[in-house]
């Protein structure tokens, strides 16, 4: 189990780091094998920073991340089990090399002793799992492939390892609707194989589609978390309610109330309260800060 406990990230900003900016504020949740957790937030919510901290690409300012109870140290041993896929597939590939390089890197670092023929078999195997045809993707340059193909190939890369947890940071936001759903379904396949997936997204409908549990972030804080059907079916925090009412849907049109155009004020001190079993909601003065939408 991957557990985040009171994770905080404070950035120094301004000249000489005189001022600080809290990007992530005391965030705790855990990710179990065989489930997808959606980390939902808008820009500036800290969702990407949390993903990067789990992957050891950014170090937390406070709190702890543990894997099976042991504090995480980013490095080869950890990356064997925990991997990431990012938003922009084109930026994940070195443009001057062929796409095979991301797979070759895994072999060089983790399986130098494996014979070439066996390695080829493993690649074919993991490409099959992400439903890619080896002949269509291997030996190509990144710009010759589509975003969907590139994202699948990155998932295939992670599958070459002894993968247990995957951080998927906005991996579908640059894909077209018709290919987006295929990548989501792929994550669901991984889940049924026992992998734990952290699905970072700003798109509530995608989070709703794929996850067992959802964590809603607002300005670095968890405002609501719990089983997906509770968070989406019975949202309690005003921010969650506002988000849900803003999502464009195909079945219903937006209601008459106009959403505000203005930004909301800074967060006030508050605590998470359990509203129903497993469903946590932040109690604060939010109702006055966020103008009511209903």
């Amino acid at each position: 189990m991957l557990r985040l406990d009171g994770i905080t990230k404070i950035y120094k900003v301004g000249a000489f780091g005189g001022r600080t900016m809290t990007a992530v504020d005391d965030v705790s949740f855990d990710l179990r094998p065989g489930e997808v957790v959606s980390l939902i937030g808008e820009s500036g919510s800290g969702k990407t920073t949390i993903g990067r901290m789990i992957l050891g690409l950014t170090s937390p300012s406070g709190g702890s991340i543990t894997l099976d109870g042991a504090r995480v140290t980013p490095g080869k041993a950890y990356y064997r089990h925990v991997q990431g896929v990012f938003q922009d597939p084109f930026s994940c590939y070195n443009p001057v090399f062929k796409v095979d390089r991301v797979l070759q890197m895994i072999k060089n670092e983790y399986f130098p002793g494996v014979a070439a023929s066996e390695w080829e078999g493993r690649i074919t195997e993991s490409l099959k799992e992400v439903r890619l045809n080896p002949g269509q993707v291997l030996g190509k340059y990144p710009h010759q492939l589509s975003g969907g193909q590139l994202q699948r190939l990155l998932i295939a890369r992670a599958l070459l390892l002894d993968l247990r947890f995957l951080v998927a940071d906005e991996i579908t936001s640059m894909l077209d609707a018709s290919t987006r759903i295929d990548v989501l379904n792929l994550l669901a396949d991984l889940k049924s194989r026992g992998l734990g997936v952290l699905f970072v997204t700003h798109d509530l409908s995608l989070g709703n589609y794929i996850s067992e549990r959802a964590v809603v972030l607002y300005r670095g804080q968890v405002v609501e978390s719990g089983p997906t059907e509770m968070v989406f079916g019975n949202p309690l925090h005003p921010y969650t309610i506002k988000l849900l009412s803003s999502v464009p849907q195909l079945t219903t049109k937006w209601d008459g109330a106009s959403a505000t155009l203005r930004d909301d004020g800074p967060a006030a001190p508050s605590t998470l309260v359990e509203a129903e079993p497993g469903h946590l909601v932040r109690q604060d003065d939010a109702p006055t800060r966020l103008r009511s939408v209903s």
Partner: protein
Amino acid sequence: MTAVPARRHEGLYFAIRNGKLLAGLVVLVPLIVLAVAGPMFVEGDPNAYVGIPASSPSAEHWFGTTMFGQDIFAQFLYGMRVTFVVGLLGGGLAAIIGMVIGFTAGYRGGLVDEVLNMLTNIVLVLPALAVLLIVNAYLGIRSVGVQALFIGLTSWPWAARAIRAQTFSLRSRDFVDLARLSGVRTWKIIVREIAPNMSSYLFMTFILLFGGSILIAASLDFIGLGPSQGVSLGLMLNNAARWSALHLGMWWWFVPPGAGITAIVGALYVTNVGLDEVFNPKLREL
């Protein structure tokens, strides 16, 4: 696009089909051959007084003679060799220092970056030529190697800054993160992931440093701080200028060294553009 042959030879495949690269090499290679092998075919000292002073090109003296009757063709061959050596050593040294400092500062960031940046800025504002003058005059060392060393040690800062800026922007790209997630070590990420993305840029940096070294060397030669023996293209140019070759219409004195420097730097530039097209798969297909 025609079918691409075996993977390993792909670079070569595109290289031999690239007009710019070929044109650059067509100029560059003969010049290098000339500089390396040429002096072997010229007997004696290129500064010896062998002919009638100030005579125009003839069968005997292909490029004519100087005001003092020195054979300009012989000087040109020797001078080209010295010029290549100074450019290669000075430019090469500056490029290496610039790369090490630029990559380290750009990739590491933070305190390391600030310290290295300070060092870079200090060297950048040193009046390089004045320092060279003083050091050269004090130590009185007049060999080509030492001249190249001094040039190399003082001309790297702008290269370091440029490389730092490039590294800084490449470092935030996701493929660097992905390499980190693959357990690749830092220096390997720099050399194998970041550097290839700016290979043509690095080459261009080297070309500019190369040309810069040649020009600084020429300036030093001019004020009498060049190598005490021998000849260089810079020395030839400045001799020509000092003895008013232009006013006397002795074009054969200054055209060969001037054309030589221009050809070397120009050909390197064209080669660079060609290499960019070969190495950048995106440019290839257009």
